[in-house]
């Protein structure tokens, strides 16, 4: 006892607290390793460490070998110090093996997709939590799980709201640098401004000409004051330079978790060139997604990698939302159905949906396929359980979290967002043209709006020439028109006004449809027809006209389709312009997916600005006389 008191006094001397934190000796309990109890007393050492504490069985161990070797070393040292007998050492080692500690390792994957530069809370929609809230969520998951990776499945940038878009999406890269993400698979929108600009996002340096580049806070910039570039890796397994045959970014990244390597293969959809303007993808070749993954599997295996996660910017349509996955359809299903059985998880995107599904691979075995909505609203909270002997994933579990608009904002990012928000005040007021009166998105009885007419006209104007698409008609989804265009002094339209009307940054796509397919497209506007969930009357460009009888049955409502008064020939081909969202079958207009000979075009707001510029006298509200409702 006297010895213990001395030790206690010594411990007190060396600790800053007024009271010693421990009573050296045999302790009160016995050592338990994981769930395996032993009869060995949990002795307290003079330095207040305990036998159980020094074995550190609670911390993650990369293998059973690593844990057992650690217990062996620690117990030998304790035996040398007289704190354990050989008998107790043997019992602790036997228990260490029985506990199974080290044989499994759980890694947390924190995944999102289609962030699209939504750094500022509530920009574009009251549902957008902003990067500050996303960061709070991510940091909490990181703190609770020391073994983690933060991954993005594409469209991190591009089609961004003003606060990021104006500054060439540098704010988004800087925000992600601050959060500390690991990988971003390229999506189609990463190519919106072309390869050189995308490479700049990775490697840094200011934009060669745009004055809004390199305006970040000093803490986020390079030592020379220029944009720093991403401190995470862009991945592009299926995007090759046609000249060199090399991928423009690494095909995969590897993260090592205590000797257990997990490969993250990143890619965009093969069809990226069909939804990006040709200049954005010039000199690049986009390969089949499943073939690309499958060809990499042997390479990864040769490096001793058995845990393979695919980050893919292609998705599906699931009916469940965040809750689960009663069913999923769409391109991702066809891709996963062809995947090598070695693939352990698919983090998908592109469809802006939230789902958590199991889909069959090539051999029929199931793999988890997740997607976390859009604009930072959701976050995939995914557990990968690895067998540390085989180094392979043996189980996955996922929850799609809501970021939440009332989640606390991370103070580590608020200054970044506030900085760019303040800088954007001026540019928002830049005058891009004139209108003669306020232009409303309110629809008349036929579903046509003045603003819808103008936007469709602007899209047709941007794609009418032979070089830009040879379009004869444009269709605009009403849901993509987010606000009225207000009448300011002198009819001046600000860039901020135009951006608020069309905040999605969709690009234009011109494709070929037959007259019959255009008829199907218009029939699909009505709820219950061709899978349409709700009535969506497309806005049409000048010269196009038709009638519909709402009371008729599906397939019999639309009639008298004409362009400049000439009836459409069901068998003839027409060049049709829609935005990239519709071109992918968005809003239920599946027939548009069948459109061939696709040509990407300008971003919608750029087309709108060009249309205003081409009409210096001012653009008048649309006539709302192109669609006629019979009943």
């Amino acid at each position: 006892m006297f010895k213990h008191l001395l030790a206690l006094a010594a411990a007190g001397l060396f600790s800053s607290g007024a009271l010693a934190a421990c009573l050296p000796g045999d302790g009160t309990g016995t050592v338990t390793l994981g769930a395996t109890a032993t009869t060995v007393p949990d002795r307290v050492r003079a330095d207040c460490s305990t036998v159980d504490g020094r074995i550190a069985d609670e911390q993650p161990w990369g293998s059973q070998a690593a844990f057992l070797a650690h217990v062996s070393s620690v117990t030998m040292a304790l035996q040398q110090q007289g704190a354990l007998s050989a008998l107790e050492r043997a019992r602790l080692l036997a228990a260490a093996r029985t506990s199974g500690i080290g044989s499994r390792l759980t890694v947390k994957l924190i995944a999102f997709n289609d962030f699209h530069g939504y750094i500022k809370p509530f920009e574009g929609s009251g549902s957008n939590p902003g990067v500050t809230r996303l960061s709070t969520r991510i940091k909490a998951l990181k703190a609770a799980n020391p073994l983690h990776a933060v991954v993005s499945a594409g469209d991190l940038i591009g089609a961004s709201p003003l606060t990021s878009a104006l500054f060439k999406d540098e704010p988004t890269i800087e925000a992600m640098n601050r959060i500390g993400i690991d990988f971003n698979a390229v999506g189609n929108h990463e190519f919106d401004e072309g390869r050189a600009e995308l490479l700049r996002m990775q490697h840094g340096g200011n934009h060669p000409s745009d004055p809004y580049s390199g305006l970040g806070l000093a803490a986020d910039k390079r030592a020379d004051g220029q944009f720093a570039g991403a401190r995470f890796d862009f991945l592009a397994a299926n995007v090759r330079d046609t000249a060199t045959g090399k991928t423009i970014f690494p095909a995969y990244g590897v993260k090592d978790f205590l000797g257990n390597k997990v490969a993250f293969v990143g890619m965009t959809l093969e069809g990226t060139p069909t939804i990006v303007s040709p200049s954005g993808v010039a000199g690049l070749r986009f390969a089949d997604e499943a073939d690309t993954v499958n060809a990499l599997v042997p390479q990864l295996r040769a490096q001793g990698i058995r845990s393979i996660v695919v980050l893919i910017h292609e998705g599906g349509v699931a009916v469940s939302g965040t809750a689960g996955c009663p069913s999923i359809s769409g391109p991702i299903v066809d891709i996963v159905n062809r995947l090598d059985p070695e693939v352990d998880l698919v983090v998908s995107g592109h469809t802006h949906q939230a789902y958590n599904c199991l889909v069959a691979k090539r051999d029929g075995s199931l793999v988890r396929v997740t997607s976390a909505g859009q604009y930072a609203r959701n976050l995939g909270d995914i557990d990968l359980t690895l067998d540390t002997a085989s180094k392979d994933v043996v189980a996955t579990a996922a929850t799609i979290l809501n970021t939440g608009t009332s989640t606390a904002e991370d103070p580590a990012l608020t200054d970044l967002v506030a900085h760019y928000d303040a800088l954007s005040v001026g540019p928002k007021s830049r005058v891009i043209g004139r209108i003669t009166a306020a232009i409303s998105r309110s629809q008349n009885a036929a579903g046509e709006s003045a603003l819808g007419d103008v936007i469709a006209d602007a899209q047709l104007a941007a794609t009418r020439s032979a070089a830009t698409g040879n379009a004869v008609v444009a269709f605009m989804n009403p849901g993509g028109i987010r606000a009225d265009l207000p009448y300011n002094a002198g009819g001046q339209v600000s860039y901020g006004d135009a951006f608020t009307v069309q905040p999605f940054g969709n690009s234009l796509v011109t494709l070929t449809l037959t007259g019959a397919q255009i008829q199907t497209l218009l029939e699909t506007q009505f709820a219950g027809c061709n899978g349409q969930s709700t009535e969506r009357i497309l806005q049409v460009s000048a010269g196009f006209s038709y009638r519909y009888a709402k009371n008729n049955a599906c397939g019999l409502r639309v009639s008298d389709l004409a362009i400049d008064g000439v009836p459409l020939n069901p068998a003839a081909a027409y060049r049709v312009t829609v935005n990239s969202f519709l071109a992918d079958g968005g809003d239920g207009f599946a027939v548009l997916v069948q459109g061939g000979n696709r040509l990407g075009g300008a971003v919608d707001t750029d087309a709108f600005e060009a249309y205003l510029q081409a009409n210096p006298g001012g653009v008048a509200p649309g006539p709302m006389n192109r669609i006629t409702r019979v009943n």
Partner: protein
Amino acid sequence: MKFPTTPMAAALLALAACGAQAAHLQLVDAATFGSSLTSVTAADGGQLGFSGPVDELSGLAEALAFGDGQHTGSLAGSGLGFRSEWVRLAALDASGATTRLQLSGSSAWHFDGTAELAEALEQATVGLDARLQVGSDGEAAGSAVRVRLQLGAESLFSSSVAGAGDTPTFSLLVQDSGFNTLASYNGVALNGRDTLDVAFDSAVGQTLTLSLVYANALGLGNASLTGVQRVESSALLDGTLSVSAVPEPQSVALLLAGLGVVGTAARRRRA
């Protein structure tokens, strides 16, 4: 003496870079082995015997052999109670940049009663044979590397009765594919401590064979036992194999030239 600090720091940095971690060892395959055999024989001929296996628990990047046992019995005739508890471990962890290796064991005997003991003997072995390839971390195949083996070995033995002893023996052998010995260790003394720090040349792509064995014979002979008596033994060999790049001749020449310049400058400054 005042050194021109900046060039000296640069030279030292260059020197440090030459020894930087490069390449790594990758486990190609491994086999493990081991067992423990214990026998207790009294002068009157009463006998007990136990044996236990060592299990192979190897994985893709780690070789692991582990065995443990708890045996109890009493001798016919004298009624001497005997309990033996043992554990043996051989591990090779090639999952990281540095390869870790370990051999270890503990054995504890507990006698309770009065008897004339002729002999108690535990003969235990645990070990593994592994092939390791010098894997590339970006270096070309055939690039020269230096492999450093560092280890510590220790043994602890105690007995409450005279006439007991142990013969812990660690054997480590590293050979190239032509069976030329690159490094070896044989030891350790009872209740002793030992260290080894050696290095050998290899190259990216080469395959090394590593043999690790821990064998011992724990014995007690011709003892008059009474009451509770204990014999205990533990041993541990803990080591690492690390790979570093060997600088190309031209970079060595550059380094030497650089150091020469630094030296000249220093001399001039003193003059």
